[in-house]
């Protein structure tokens, strides 16, 4: 009986080994390839670190299962081989694991940034309204100016800090490794989408841009301020350019938020235009401070035309208008506003940022010269004439005095 059991077992094991032996090599190879490919897919599509860990277990079990077929697989997996296949799987696993580590770190960063941004959002709103009030008050009460300047500086720093946080937020949501990819996987897209939604990123970007626009509109700024804002704007725009299309593609798939993204693009353009407008407004305000009320202008061409038109009118009025008033207007426009403030302060900024050209500057200055000539032209001519006559008279006198006297016979004897 005992022997019979042993014989049966042996027969069964022989049958089993026979059926194993009878397996097609082609099927073994295909089975291995299919399983390796499935693991590779599960690694790439893993949406959590736990799913990834299960893929790691699958790699180990595949290796163990096919270890005795290594020779066959080495020959058949051209251009790969048994070890190379596992190296590739391991590499895919390590890469994906890196993504998850990065995503986890970034998620924590973004959550922290979100809180800070919210605090700054509130603070900036308060500061903007404070600047608005102080700007109005400082017109009547000069003591408010120092307070205003301090608040503007505070607001500027606060806006900049918030912008930096928003930039870090975008940077963290779509890290450079994502930006380099031509197409994100559906899991990556989902990840970015949910993080953007959760952290209200689009709203924060929009708010940041709108606050910057408001700041430009309410505060009186120097060219240095504008240069700083411009650099900040360029940095922001550069980041948005690399991230925006990715977000558009993610959002268009979800059929959501595309209007918000369009709005952000438009707000960027508005911010840029407001920055240009702010420079010209500052120039206009300088003239206004000296009692020269020029029409609104928003470009070098418009400013040149406005200034030329103003000067032409003044030239026409020479002789009609009281001469003293004309000269005061000229001095305010040319000496105080243009040569005193606009040219040294704003013209270099305008030229550097291609808002104004050398030719336009020359046109304005030629017009000023014409104006000056028409105002002071006749008195200058008289002065030149008198000076000229005086010079001629002096020269004649010198010549006459120095002319040697004719020699007389007495003189000759004496010598």
């Amino acid at each position: 009986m005992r022997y019979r059991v042993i014989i049966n077992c042996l027969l069964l094991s022989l049958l089993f080994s026979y059926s194993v032996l009878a397996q097609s090599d082609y099927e073994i190879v295909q089975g291995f390839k299919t399983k390796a490919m499935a693991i590779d897919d599960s690694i790439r599509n893993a949406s959590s670190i736990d799913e990834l860990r299960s893929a790691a277990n699958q790699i180990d079990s595949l290796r163990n299962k096919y270890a005795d077929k290594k020779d066959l697989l080495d020959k058949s997996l051209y251009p790969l081989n048994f070890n190379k296949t596992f190296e590739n799987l391991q590499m895919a696993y390590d890469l994906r694991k890196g993504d998850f580590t990065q995503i986890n770190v970034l998620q924590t960063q973004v959550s922290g940034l979100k809180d800070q941004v919210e605090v700054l959002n509130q603070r900036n709103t308060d500061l903007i309204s404070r600047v608005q009030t102080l700007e109005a008050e400082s017109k009547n009460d000069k003591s408010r100016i120092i307070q205003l300047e301090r608040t503007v500086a505070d607001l500027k720093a606060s806006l900049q800090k918030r912008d930096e946080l928003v930039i870090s937020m975008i940077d963290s949501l779509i890290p450079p490794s994502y930006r380099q990819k031509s197409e994100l996987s559906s899991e990556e897209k989902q990840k970015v989408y949910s993080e953007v939604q959760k952290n209200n990123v689009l709203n924060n970007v929009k708010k940041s841009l709108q606050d910057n626009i408001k700041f430009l509109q309410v505060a009186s700024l120097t060219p240095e301020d504008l240069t700083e804002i411009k650099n900040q704007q360029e940095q922001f725009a550069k980041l948005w350019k690399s991230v925006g299309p990715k977000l558009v593609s993610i959002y268009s798939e979800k059929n959501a938020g595309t209007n918000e993204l369009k709005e952000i693009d438009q707000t960027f353009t508005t911010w840029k235009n407001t920055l240009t407008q702010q420079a010209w407004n500052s120039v206009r305000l300088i003239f206004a401070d000296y009692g020269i009320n020029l029409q609104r202008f928003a470009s070098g061409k418009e400013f040149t035309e406005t200034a030329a038109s103003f000067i032409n009118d003044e030239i026409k009025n020479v002789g009609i208008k009281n001469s003293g008033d004309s000269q005061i207007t000229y001095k305010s426009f040319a000496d105080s506003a243009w040569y005193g403030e606009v040219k040294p302060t704003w013209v270099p900024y305008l030229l550097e940022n291609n808002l104004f050209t050398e030719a336009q500057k020359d046109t304005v200055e030629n017009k000023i010269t014409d104006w000056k000539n028409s105002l002071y032209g006749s008195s200058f001519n008289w002065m030149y004439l008198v000076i000229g006559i005086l010079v001629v008279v002096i020269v004649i006198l010198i010549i006459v005095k120095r002319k040697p006297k004719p020699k007389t016979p007495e003189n000759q004897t004496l010598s």
Partner: protein
Amino acid sequence: MKILKYVIIMTAAVLAGCSSLRLSPADFSWPVESVIRVDDNGMAKEDRYALSFNAKPLYFEETGDSLAYLDRDLRVIRDTLGYYYITGNKFKNVYVFTMGDGAFNLYNEIQVSETGIANPVFNQRPPYVELIEGDNQYCLSNSGIEKEKK
């Protein structure tokens, strides 16, 4: 006459010298069979070995039906000596081919079943090619069935 003999001997020696160049040993075996789908034009293409051939005459030979190739797979393997073994589902024979000038030349037709073999597979088992059909295993060489296990 002597000169003519000399020329003939020299020519023979030169020709013999040319034909005696052998690169040996050489192993032409494929590690695993290839399963090749025959396309609508009757062409069988194998990408790994950059091999393609017209399978229509083979099906005609096997079934007598010139359209029997449609939606069918062929199983192909090459042995150590360089012979190609081709068969397919419901084939009665394994066809052994050698390479000719732009063609496969039939070298041997090995009958393995009178009714047709179901789901055959080839394995490379040097010096033989193993054919498995259900529980039957055959060790084939270019000249026929060498061993049979049931």
